[in-house]
């Protein structure tokens, strides 16, 4: 390798939890810093300007202001590879719930002088504004996934994008399905893998934080949740969670919220 690849982690509207996933790598982070130069990461204080050329730019957070858009375009123009990390950057995050509300009305009700707030009417995924080379889902992303992505890119190969359902990993771990034994409204059958089936491994139902899996059947699954005793509006809310703006989930939300209106 002629030069140490440069990596930047940029933050937009988010809780910084995905950046923390980096910090949580522990010893592996030290290993990683032998391999790459981390030129920008607000959480740890390195702050190269956004027009610095980098090999990999990781983006955390969603786009909610005109200023965000300017920054993002600059980053994209200076990054060989751009990877979104986490639900906010990849689907718009929990804050995308506002996309269905009158954000102007909210601002008028919260702020004394809303005219000073420069905000877009939606919270949008990075891919709504620029080309994204690879997506890492999750709230937060897993540090293991980030490593694998970096390691694979260092080998000159695009990372693999596994989109199977959480159930697959849950079964590999030998977990008992709490949907079947306890009627728990576990969202594993529609949610993308990557977390290692974390919640179900502790007996807690999955709540979609890794976004939609490939080939999901939300209509059938939503009906099943109704069969377990959920009200259609509760079903809609199960989909309208952290990744509410991911198309498969926003369609499911509309489908079941609509059903409530009919009933």
């Amino acid at each position, binding site marked *: 390798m002629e030069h140490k690849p440069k990596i930047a982690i940029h933050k937009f509207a988010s809780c910084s939890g995905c950046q923390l996933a980096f910090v949580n790598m522990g010893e592996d982070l030290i290993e990683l810093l032998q391999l790459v130069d981390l030129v920008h990461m607000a959480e740890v204080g390195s702050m190269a300007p956004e027009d610095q050329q980098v090999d990999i730019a990781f983006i955390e957070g969603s786009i909610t202001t005109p200023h965000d858009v300017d920054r993002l375009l600059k980053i994209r123009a200076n990054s060989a590879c751009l990877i979104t990390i986490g639900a906010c950057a990849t689907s718009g995050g929990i804050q995308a719930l506002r996309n269905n509300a009158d954000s102007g009305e909210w601002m008028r009700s919260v702020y004394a002088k809303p005219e000073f707030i420069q905000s877009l009417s939606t919270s949008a995924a990075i891919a709504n504004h620029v080309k994204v080379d690879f997506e890492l889902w999750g709230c937060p992303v897993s540090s293991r996934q980030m490593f694998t992505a970096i*390691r*694979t890119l260092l*080998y*000159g*190969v*695009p990372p*693999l994008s596994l989109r199977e359902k959480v159930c697959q990993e849950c079964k590999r771990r030998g977990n008992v399905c709490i949907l079947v034994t306890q009627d728990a409204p576990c969202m594993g059958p529609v949610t993308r893998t990557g977390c290692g089936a974390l919640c179900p491994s502790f007996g807690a139902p999955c709540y979609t934080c890794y976004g939609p899996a490939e080939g999901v059947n939300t209509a059938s699954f939503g009906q099943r949740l109704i069969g377990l005793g959920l009200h259609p509006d509760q079903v809609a809310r199960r989909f309208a969670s952290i990744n509410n703006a991911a198309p498969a989930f926003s369609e499911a939300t509309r489908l079941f919220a609509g059903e409530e209106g009919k009933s």
Partner: protein
Amino acid sequence: MSVANCYLPWEAEIVERTQETPDIFTWRLRFTDPEIARQYTFQHGQFNMLYLYGVGEVAISVMSGDGSSLLHTIRAVGRVTQAMMDLRVGDRVGVRGPFGRGWPLFDARGQDIVFVTAGLGCAPVVSSIRYVVANRPDYGRLVIMQSVRYRHEALWAPQYDAWRGLPDTQVLLTSSRDKTRWPLWELGRVGVLLDQADYDKNNCYVMMCGPDQMLRDTAKTLIEKGVPGPRVFVSLERNMQCAVGHCGHCQMGGKFVCKDGPVFPFPEVAALMETEGF
């Protein structure tokens, strides 16, 4: 492949590398363990699993050679093969194989041989053509039909010209997307060549590789023209990961393409090739 652990690759060195087209390259490999090199043999139509360090394996048919000079022609189409294109002479890769059932070149002795290929990834057939050419007295007429999208993509074109000059040999070429017709070339899919082919349909072996749809359509046409079904052989491509019939990805109905194939007599797979999803 006879080894206690069928999953374990052997190390091999890239001793020569040829860029055939912008996205096709050929490696000459040599097993670094001379004992492995000595033992390695293959049949035409079989494949190896080639391993890229830290990334994974891909199934690639064996072009020719032996364990100290093994030729693989690779098209950079997937994430592994694209990265393989960046490797240089002296780099090391993993190899396990050979796997699967090859072409019936032994049974076909004394018969006319018809090769039909479409697309660029026709290494499985090219190695057999070379074998038949090298053992010309053992076989009857030789007919080679190849279709490519564009004439300039045709790999091994000089070889085709050389083969054309051999006795009792016919080379028929077509390009499916070109607008201009060149001498010795037709325009259209491989089907346009079938009528020009001169062979004894009752005493021939047909060996084909290409996309499923082309294989199916051409096989059916040839059988309609009177070639017995069991004499039409196709080399199939499926998702091969373990190569030893364990992982299940390459299954086509009851067949494991990796070990029951990749070369099949067409009647064994004809019904499933008619249905989407197998």
